[in-house]
């Protein structure tokens, strides 16, 4: 996984609450058995005017000029500004894969759905929760100022505006540690293999019905 310590990038404001993962990446693209290549189909039904199909050349498709990411001023945005309950619905990790593949590194919203929030950290993508009124302010600034960028420092847990205004955010220590260092958390867990084995052995004695049934 790609590490993320600091990031500064162009902000794209997506002014819509309850963006679900079906919207982030529609189901026809979940048939892939790979983790990569989902970027061209990010927000497919909002971005294009036709019905998207897997393995299509998206550069030939009619685009929806009203959609925020299709506007020239937001080309190459890497910070997505969003509204409440972003990423609700399906657990598909294809949603953060698509956001990451498109080029986003940071998503800022007043709240995220639990599974999506967790999936982001596994893919070098940082979801940041800020208070609703701060998010409102960032929306206003991003829409008013072309080329508006935010600077994110995961070590210091801050988001800083071009005017130098800094906002603190919370993130739990384990997720932060893994993202700062680009760690594979399976490797971290396997350092505890003996503890897991001991737990398992004890469970085998006290709850034998939990073992041996699936084979």
């Amino acid at each position, binding site marked *: 996984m790609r590490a993320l310590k600091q990031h500064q990038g162009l902000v794209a404001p997506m002014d819509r609450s*309850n963006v679900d993962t079906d*919207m982030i990446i529609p189901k*026809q693209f979940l048939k*892939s058995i790979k983790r990569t290549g989902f970027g061209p189909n990010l927000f497919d039904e909002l971005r294009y005017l036709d019905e998207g199909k897997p393995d299509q050349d998206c550069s030939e498709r009619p685009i929806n000029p009203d959609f925020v990411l299709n506007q020239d001023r937001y080309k190459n945005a890497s910070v997505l500004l969003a509204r409440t*309950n972003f990423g*609700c619905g399906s657990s598909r*990790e294809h949603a953060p894969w698509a956001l990451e593949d498109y080029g986003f590194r940071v998503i800022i919203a007043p709240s995220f759905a*639990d*599974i999506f929030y967790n999936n982001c950290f596994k893919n070098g993508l940082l979801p940041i929760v800020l208070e609703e009124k701060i998010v409102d302010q960032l929306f206003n600034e991003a829409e008013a100022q072309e080329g508006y960028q935010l600077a994110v420092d995961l070590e210091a847990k801050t988001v800083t505006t071009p005017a130098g205004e800094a906002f603190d955010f919370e993130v739990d220590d384990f997720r932060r540690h893994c993202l700062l260092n680009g760690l594979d958390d399976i490797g971290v867990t396997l350092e505890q293999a003996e503890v897991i084995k001991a737990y398992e052995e004890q469970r085998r004695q006290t709850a034998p019905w939990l073992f041996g049934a699936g084979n």
Partner: protein
Amino acid sequence: MRGSKIDPFIEQEPPTNERVIMAGKTLYDKLWDDHLVKQRDDGSALIYIDRQLLHEVTSPQAFEGLRLAGRKPWRIDANIATPDHNVPTTDRDKGIDGIVDPVSRTQVETLDKNCDEFGILEFKIKDQRQGIVHVIGPEQGATLPGMSIVCGDSHTSTHGAFGCLAHGIGTSEVEHVLATQCLVQQKMKNMLVKVNGKLGPGVTGKDVVLAIIGKIGTAGGTGHAIEFGGEAIRGLSMEARMTICNMSIEAGARVGMVAVDDTTIDYVRGRPFAPTGETWDAAVDYWRTLHSDDDAFFDKVVELEGSEIKPQVSWGTSPEMVAGVDGFVPDPAKEQDPIKREGIVRALKYMGLQPNTPITGIALDRVFIGSCTNSRIEDLREAAAVVKGRKVAAGLKQAMVVPGSGLVKAQAEQEGLDKIFIEAGLEWRDPGCSMCLAMNADKLGQGEHCASTSNRNFEGRQGFGGRTHLVSPAMAAAAAVTGHFVDVRELMN
């Protein structure tokens, strides 16, 4: 349930140190403690996973990750797999060759290859035990009370109906569980949703959960494990409890649970993977402890009166956008909150609906009875009881019934339900996820309205431009024979 007399959220007082020490445990607290392998200094915890269910869509990258890292599954017998999302609901005698879309076929073949390579039990496409993962786990007794259960699918909350700690995970976590049998978790908060009293006739588990989501909103349970309790829940069958827990995620909660009681134990007894003899007795003794203590502390409590819940219909593009069947499509002009108003305007535009239209005035194009929410035998019985002796309305393009598993299908046929559906003009299909998310050939056309027993009415969910209305199986059946929404209670004798 907007505008009803039901009480608002009751926010509990924050616990004092003394109360934390004195308070009993919730069901979730007990399940968490039983599965805690290690509490880490940074606040995260390693939780042991008893059962992982696998399907073709969210597992290929996990198996590939294992291979690339040279890792082996930690405990093969904790895993059970089946293809469900991509499988066709016709021509199943052809097996994998019956999957026309080559990309879908590759995904199902990849699951077969991965399970064969690692020795994981899989109910393949031609096995009668194949079905939707959340139907076959309970059906096989592979879902047992008190288990921790995960699957790369958000509707894994279904299994919480058995007093399990069950939730959806992403593909990276599927790989993590395969490799370590554990998950890195942070403990959630506790929320109690209590449904008091009795439900009226024609009101089902689906109506209860839609009413709950309508009341608390699609993020009302975020960060919480919900326990559903109260007299109305206690009176429900396991099928209805599964429907309710299934849709916890639609209220934002990854985990939804019901305490173990005789209904739970009677359902599990005698199933293929359930314990027997002395082990069964020991298991039952333990399972009977799986309920919240009387003095347990919940961070949030919500109460509903069962007798006030009417058959529900969703009118918008989020599961919280629901109304009673006697209600109306809302008028955005009456909404004070600007963000909600904008959401209603957008939803009505997508759904092609005018404000203040009666719910019963919404014309339909298709009816879908199926999905992990409502494809079990009781669901099919309820739908069959409504269509029996009636005919599908002339204006409908299609009405289909997709059983949740090969065994549900066989049982329905044994009871003659298939004949009732076919005589009424509904299509009787083979098991799978089907039109719930339209990854196979079953989908809505652009602009079509569908009465669906599934769980999500998101834009494009059932097909590009498709318009979904979430309802119970009985309400879907009533819609099938009338061509529009109708209060199913009017059709009941």
